[in-house]
């Protein structure tokens, strides 16, 4: 097994074993979506209209909740220092950890979204597209979250600070992610242009974000 794959497998295993973190993210997602109608009223038409936006925003928040654990555990026990001097280039390490976060947080959240969509009266035939869109967009979420996690390494209240730093960067993901689903439901026009933009954002994040994250890790470890 190559070192890269080994690191990925290790991180995914650790996250699953920790279990709690993933469960908490899913639970938070559920709670936020449940809370919304209490604030907005039970009008199903209204809920159906805002469902894509709601599901996306709640997903962003839930993903950010677990973002500071991308590097935290390894930072605490010194593994991160070892990884810096190891055979893998640091940007690759950051990329692998971001990928692990996506696999253990982004994907579960995306898969849970349609279930929550039921609560918000999201049309059933929109659900496959919703899942696809979220699967396409959550890599951007995870990889950008890793930048925030690396910048706030070891700081107090890093979770909140991380969210403050990173949420403005999610505006394009949110816009294109929600528009894809909305346009499929209501129109006007085809949902595929925003969907392609979303994919482009994810691809760009996968390629570029690890370098920023690695640079931030180096400043935090010095």
């Amino acid at each position, binding site marked *: 097994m190559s070192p890269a794959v080994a690191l990925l497998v290790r991180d995914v295993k650790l996250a699953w074993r920790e279990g709690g973190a993933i469960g908490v993210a899913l639970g938070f997602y559920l709670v936020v979506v449940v809370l919304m109608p209490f604030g907005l009223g039970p009008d199903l038409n209204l809920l159906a209209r805002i469902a894509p936006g709601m599901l996306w925003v709640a997903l962003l928040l839930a993903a950010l909740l677990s973002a500071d654990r991308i590097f935290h555990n390894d930072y605490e026990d010194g593994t991160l220092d070892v990884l810096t001097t190891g055979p893998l280039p640091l940007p690759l390490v950051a990329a692998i950890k971001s990928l692990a976060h996506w696999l253990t947080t982004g994907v579960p959240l995306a898969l849970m979204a349609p279930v929550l969509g039921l609560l918000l009266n999201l049309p059933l035939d929109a659900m496959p597209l919703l899942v696809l869109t979220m699967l396409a967009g959550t890599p951007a979420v995870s990889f950008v979250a890793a930048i925030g996690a690396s*910048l*706030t390494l070891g700081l107090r209240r890093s979770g909140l600070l991380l969210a403050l730093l990173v949420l*403005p960067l999610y*505006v394009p993901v949110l*816009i294109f992610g929600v528009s894809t689903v909305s346009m499929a439901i209501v129109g006007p026009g085809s949902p595929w242009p925003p969907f392609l933009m979303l994919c482009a954002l994810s691809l760009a994040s996968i390629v570029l974000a690890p370098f920023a994250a690695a640079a931030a890790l180096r400043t935090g470890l010095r």
Partner: protein
Amino acid sequence: MISLANPTRFLGLVEIVVPWLTALVVILLGAGLYLSFFVAPPDYQQGETVRIMYIHVPSAWLAMGIYAIIAIAALGTLIWRHPLADVAAKAAAPIGATFTFVVLVTGSLWGKPMWGTYWVWDARLTSLLVLFLLYLGLIALWQAIEEPGRAGRAAAILALVGAINLPIIKFSVDWWNTLHQPASVFRAGGPTIDPSLLTPLFVMAAAFVALFVLLHLIAMRAEILRRRVRALQQSQVEHAALAGA
């Protein structure tokens, strides 16, 4: 730039320049305000409220320009290790945030008589709102990291990430706006500007630039001194530890 890298020499320069700059700011601001209120004619569409533009538009230019300066300073920190680059970036952020705040508030106050609402989610204002959040993030990051070296490098990375994202955000907000544009299309950018209105605009812009440079230099000096104080306090603690132990 290189010759100013020496902090002590830089401080000497600040000492000399500040009084002149202060005078310049006062003159330019006075001239700008006079032109804005007494010379510029009311716009035939917007009436007197166009005078708000004389603060709103130059502030927007400064808000964006200062972020560009921070991004360039970030490059200076990360690539060329210029010793004053992160000081410049840290000092500029609160000033940029204030200008952005003024843009948003004056935009809101301009919007109410113009279009009937205190806020519109048009592309420009929304992008400026996001810019405000980016400024807040930078300031928060600086506050959160104790050691100035690490703080400067981390903030530089964040500034560059933000700078790269800003065009993407602007583009996506533009696109989002065309989706949701209501039937009554208003030119949120304001009417086309008649040349007779331009002079006060440029004078106010010049005044703001002078104000920025003045405050920036003072803030940089304060930051340099703050780091010296911190270093002295630390060496004092070490002294006490060695002596007392």
